[in-house]
C-alpha cells in the first residue's frame, strides 16, 4: 500500500472535522420529508411507490453541479476552442451534415419530453432520495436540450449550409416523420401514469435505445468527419447511466405490492413497442442513409444493443420481479432488418417536406445495402434506379416519388398508433395493415401491437394526422408556409441531391402539381395490392 493510499484511507476513517463530504449530507435526505393529511401526488400512479426506496447515485445539489460543470467546460471548450480552429463544421460529409439537421432536432424533442416526464416522477414518488434523483434528471434533461440544440446551433454557425439547422423547429411542423417523434418522445415520456412514463423514458428509451442512438451514432458521425456530434452526444451519455438507474429504482420502488405489479408487463410491452416503432426505423435511416462511410449494418448494432444487451442482460436483472421480454420482441427483430429501409423509401418520396438535402443511394451504397441486406436491391434498389432515370434529382423533371407511388396504387398511410407513415403494399418489415372506423372517422394501423393500444384507449391517440391536417394544400405552398425556402425567397431548403447546382425552387416544386390528398379517402381506405 502506497503512502498516498494510506493517507486517503486514514482521512476517510477519520475525516478532517473542518470539511463535510457530500455523502454525509445525502445520508440524511430520507429524513427531509414529513407526513401530513393531504400529502399525495397530484399525478398519482396506479402502482404503489415505496417511500423508503433509495437512490443509487446519491448526489447532493452542489456535488451534482460540480460534476456537471466540469463536463460542460470540457464540452464547450472542445467545441469553441478545439473544433473551431479545425474548421470542424466544414470537415463533415454533406450527407451526414444534412441528416444531423433532423437527428439533433428530433433528439431535442425527446430530451424536452424527458424534462416533464422526470418532473412527473418527482411529483409522484414519495421517497426523498428518489425525488432528489428525479430532480437531477429534470436538470440533466434541460442540459440535454441545450446540448442537442447546440449541435444544430453550432452547425448553423459553421457548416456551409445552415438552412435547416437554424430553423428545424419551424420546418418540423410539416415533416411527416415528426409525429412519430412526438408520440414516442414528446408524449410517451410524459402523458400518462408516472411509472408508465418512467418505463417509456428510463427503462426502454434510455436503458435500451440510448446505446444504439447515442453511442453508435457517434461512431458513424466520426467516420463521416463529424467530431461535433461525438463531443456533445458522448457527454450526454455520461448522464444516461444515472437515468437508467432511476428507471431501475422506479421498478424497485413498486415491487413490494404484487397487486399493482401485475400491470408492469403490459406497460413494458407497450412502452417497448412505442419506442421501437419510432427509434428502430429512424435511427437506421439516419445511420445508413445519412452516411457516406458505413460502420456496421444497423441490424447488427440493434441485435447487440437491443436484443442481447437490453432484452437479455438488462431485463434479466428484472426477472426477479417477474419481468419477461416483451411479447412483441420477435416482430421488433424483424423490423430491425427492414423497417428503416421502408421508412427511407417514404422519406425520399416525401423529400420536399423534410427540410434537408438528401440523395438516392449511389452505386457504392446500393452494393453495401445488398451485401448486408440480401434482397434489398430487388425490393428497393430497383425503385431507386427507376426514380433516378425518371429525373428524381432534376428540378425540371416534375418528378416526385410520392406521386410515383400513388400512381401505382401504393398508398401512403399514417399509422395512427405510432404517428409514422407506412406503405402497406411495399413494406418488408412487420407491417400488417389494419383499418378501422370509430365514431365516424377512419383510422389506419401498420400492425396489431399499436392497434391494440388504440383499441383499449382510443381517446389517448385522438389527433389529426399529416394528411388530415394538410389535405388540399398544394405542395409548394405548404413548404413555403412552413419556412422551407432559403433567403433568396425561391430556392428550397430541402433538395433531392447534394450539389450546389440545379437546386430546386418553389417553381420546380409547383411543377410537380401535387396537392396533398387524404389516402383514406382516395383509396377508400383499402390499399391496392
Amino acid at each position, binding site marked *: 500500500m502506497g503512502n498516498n493510499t494510506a493517507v486517503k484511507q486514514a482521512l476517510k476513517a477519520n475525516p478532517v472535522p473542518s470539511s463535510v463530504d457530500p455523502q454525509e449530507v445525502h445520508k440524511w435526505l430520507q429524513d427531509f420529508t414529513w407526513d401530513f393529511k393531504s400529502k399525495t401526488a397530484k399525478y398519482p400512479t396506479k402502482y404503489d411507490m415505496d417511500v423508503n426506496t433509495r437512490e443509487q447515485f446519491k448526489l447532493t445539489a452542489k456535488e451534482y453541479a460540480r460534476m456537471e460543470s466540469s463536463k460542460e467546460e470540457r464540452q464547450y471548450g472542445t467545441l469553441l476552442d478545439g473544433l473551431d480552429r479545425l474548421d470542424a463544421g466544414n470537415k463533415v460529409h454533406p450527407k451526414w451534415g444534412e441528416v444531423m439537421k433532423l437527428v439533433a432536432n428530433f433528439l431535442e424533442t425527446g430530451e424536452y419530453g424527458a424534462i416533464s416526464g422526470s418532473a412527473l416522477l418527482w411529483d409522484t414518488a414519495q421517497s426523498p432520495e428518489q425525488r432528489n434523483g428525479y430532480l437531477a434528471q429534470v*436538470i440533466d434533461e434541460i442540459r440535454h436540450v441545450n446540448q442537442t440544440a447546440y449541435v444544430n446551433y453550432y452547425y448553423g454557425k459553421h457548416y456551409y449550409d445552415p438552412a435547416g439547422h437554424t430553423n428545424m423547429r419551424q420546418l418540423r411542423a410539416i415533416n411527416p416523420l415528426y409525429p412519430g417523434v412526438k408520440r414516442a418522445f414528446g408524449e410517451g415520456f410524459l402523458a400518462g401514469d408516472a411509472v408508465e412514463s418512467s418505463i417509456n423514458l428510463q427503462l426502454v428509451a434510455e436503458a435500451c435505445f440510448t446505446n444504439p442512438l447515442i453511442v453508435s451514432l457517434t461512431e458513424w458521425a466520426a467516420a463521416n468527419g463529424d467530431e461535433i456530434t461525438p463531443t456533445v452526444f458522448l457527454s450526454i451519455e455520461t448522464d444516461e447511466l444515472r437515468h437508467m438507474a432511476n428507471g431501475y429504482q422506479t421498478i424497485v420502488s413498486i415491487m413490494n405490492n404484487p397487486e399493482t405489479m401485475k400491470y408492469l408487463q403490459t406497460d413494458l410491452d407497450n412502452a417497448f413497442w412505442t419506442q421501437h416503432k419510432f427509434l428502430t426505423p429512424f435511427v437506421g435511416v439516419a445511420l445508413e442513409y445519412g452516411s457516406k462511410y458505413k460502420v456496421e449494418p444497423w441490424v447488427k448494432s440493434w441485435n447487440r444493443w437491443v436484443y442481447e444487451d437490453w432484452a437479455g442482460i438488462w431485463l434479466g436483472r428484472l426477472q426477479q420481479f417477474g419481468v419477461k421480454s416483451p411479447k412483441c420482441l420477435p416482430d421488433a427483430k424483424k423490423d430491425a432488418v427492414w423497417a428503416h429501409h421502408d421508412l427511407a423509401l417514404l422519406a425520399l418520396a416525401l423529400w420536399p417536406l423534410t427540410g434537408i438535402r438528401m440523395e438516392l443511394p449511389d452505386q457504392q451504397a446500393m452494393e453495401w445495402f445488398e451485401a448486408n441486406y440480401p434482397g434489398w436491391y430487388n425490393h428497393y434498389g430497383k425503385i431507386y434506379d427507376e426514380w433516378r432515370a425518371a429525373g428524381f434529382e432534376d428540378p425540371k423533371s416534375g418528378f416526385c416519388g410520392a406521386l410515383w407511388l400513388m400512381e401505382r396504387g401504393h398508398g401512403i398511410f399514417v399509422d395512427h398508433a405510432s404517428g409514422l407513415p407506412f406503405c402497406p403494399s411495399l413494406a418488408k418489415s412487420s407491417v400488417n395493415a389494419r383499418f378501422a372506423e370509430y365514431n365516424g372517422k377512419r383510422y389506419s394501423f401498420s400492425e396489431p401491437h399499436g392497434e391494440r393500444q388504440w383499441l383499449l384507449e382510443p381517446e389517448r391517440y385522438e389527433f389529426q394526422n399529416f394528411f388530415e391536417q394538410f389535405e388540399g394544400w398544394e405542395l409548394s405552398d405548404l413548404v413555403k408556409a412552413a419556412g422551407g425556402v432559403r433567403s433568396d425567397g425561391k430556392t428550397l431548403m430541402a433538395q433531392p441531391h447534394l450539389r450546389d447546382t440545379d437546386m430546386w425552387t418553389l417553381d420546380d416544386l409547383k411543377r410537380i402539381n401535387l396537392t396533398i390528398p387524404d389516402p383514406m379517402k382516395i383509396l377508400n381506405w383499402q390499399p391496392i395490392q
Partner: protein
Amino acid sequence: MSSNVFIRGMVDPERQAQIQALVPKAPLETKRDHIPFAKRGWRRLTEYEAVMLHAQNSLDAIPGSQEVGETVQKWPGGRGSYSIESTAAISSNWFNFRDPSKRWFQPYVKQKTEEGQTAERAMKAWVEGGDTGMMNTAWLNQILSKHYGAMIFNEYGLFSAHSTTTYGALSDLLKTWISQAAFDKNDAGQMIQMQRVLLGKAFPGFDPSLVEAKQAWTQGEVWKPAREFVEHIWADTYDWVEQLWAMHAVYDHIFGQFVRREFFQRIAGLHGDTLTPVIQFQALTYHQQAADGVSAFCLKHLIDDEPVYGQHNRRYLHAWTGKYLPQVEKALKAFLAIYKEVPVKVDGVTCRAGVQAGVERVVNGWADRFAEPIGYKFNRNAFVKNVMAGY
C-alpha cells in the same frame, strides 16, 4: 464496431479529400441566425434563449407555440399534456417569457459549483480559524439544532411543490427557470444540513439528526402556520401560476426573507455564529433570482407586456395575494415567538423596536415589489401590528 480499423473521417486524408470535393466554394445559405422565425420578445435573444426557445413540442392551442396540430399521445381519458387549462392565467404568447438572470445550464452549474467551493472554504476556515470557540452554546443547542433544522423542511416542501409547476409550465424558457428555482430550494435545504453536519463534528454534543427539528416543524407553534402554507402549496394547489406567485412573490418574499435575512443572518453574529450568514447568503441569492423571475413572469409578462389579458391576470394575482397574505401574516406572527428563545438580547436588534423594524423592512419591500404593481391595497401598519403581536 465491426471493422478492425476505425477511420475518423475528419483526419483521414482520403476521406477528407472526398469530402472537400463536395464542399461548395460559397455557403449555400448566408443567413445563420438561429430560430430566425422567433419573436424577439422584450429584448434581443441571448445565445441561450436562441438555443432553448421553441424547443418545446406542444400544440397550437398554446399561444405562441410553433407547432401545427396537437399532441399525439394523451393521458388516459384524453387530456393532453401542456394544457392551457393548467392555470387560470392567460397569455397571448407563453413563449415571450425571458429569465432576467439569463441562467442556462452551463452558467447555472458553474455558479453553483463556485458557491459550493466558497462554502467549503468558509467552513474550513471557520473551524480551523477557531471561530467555533465564539459560538454561544444556547444558540447552538436551541436555535441551530431545532429551528435552523426546521428550516430544512420549509425549503424541502417548497422544492417539492415545484414538481408540478415544472410539469405544468407552458413554455421552454419558463420550465428552465422554474426547475432551476426548484433545484435552488433543494440545495438550500441540503446546505443547512451540511452546516449542521459540520456543527456535529465541531461540537461533540451537537446532534445533526433531524429528530428535534422535525418535531419543531410538525408540532411546534413557531412553525405551524408556515408548515400549513407549505403543505397547502405542495399538495393542495393545482394551478401552477398560483403556486409560483404564492411561493416566491408572497410567502418567500415576506416570511422567507424575514427568517433568512432578518433573523438567522442578522442575529447569528450576535451569538458568535459567523458561519450561518455565509450559508444563508446563498439562499438569499437564490430567492433574489426567483423573485426576479416571478416578477418578470407575473408582472411583466402576464400584465405589463400582455396586450389582451393583462387585466384578467392582474385580477387573479390580486385574488391569490388576498388568499395567501393572511396565512403569511400568521406564519410570521407565529415565528416571532422564536425571539423568546434567543439567548443574547441586544437593544435595537432583538428588542421589540428592532424586530418591528425588521418586519417593516420586509413588508415594505414586498409591498413595493409585488403589491403595488398589481394594485393590491392593504394596511401595512395593521399587518405589522398583527405580526408583532406574536413577539
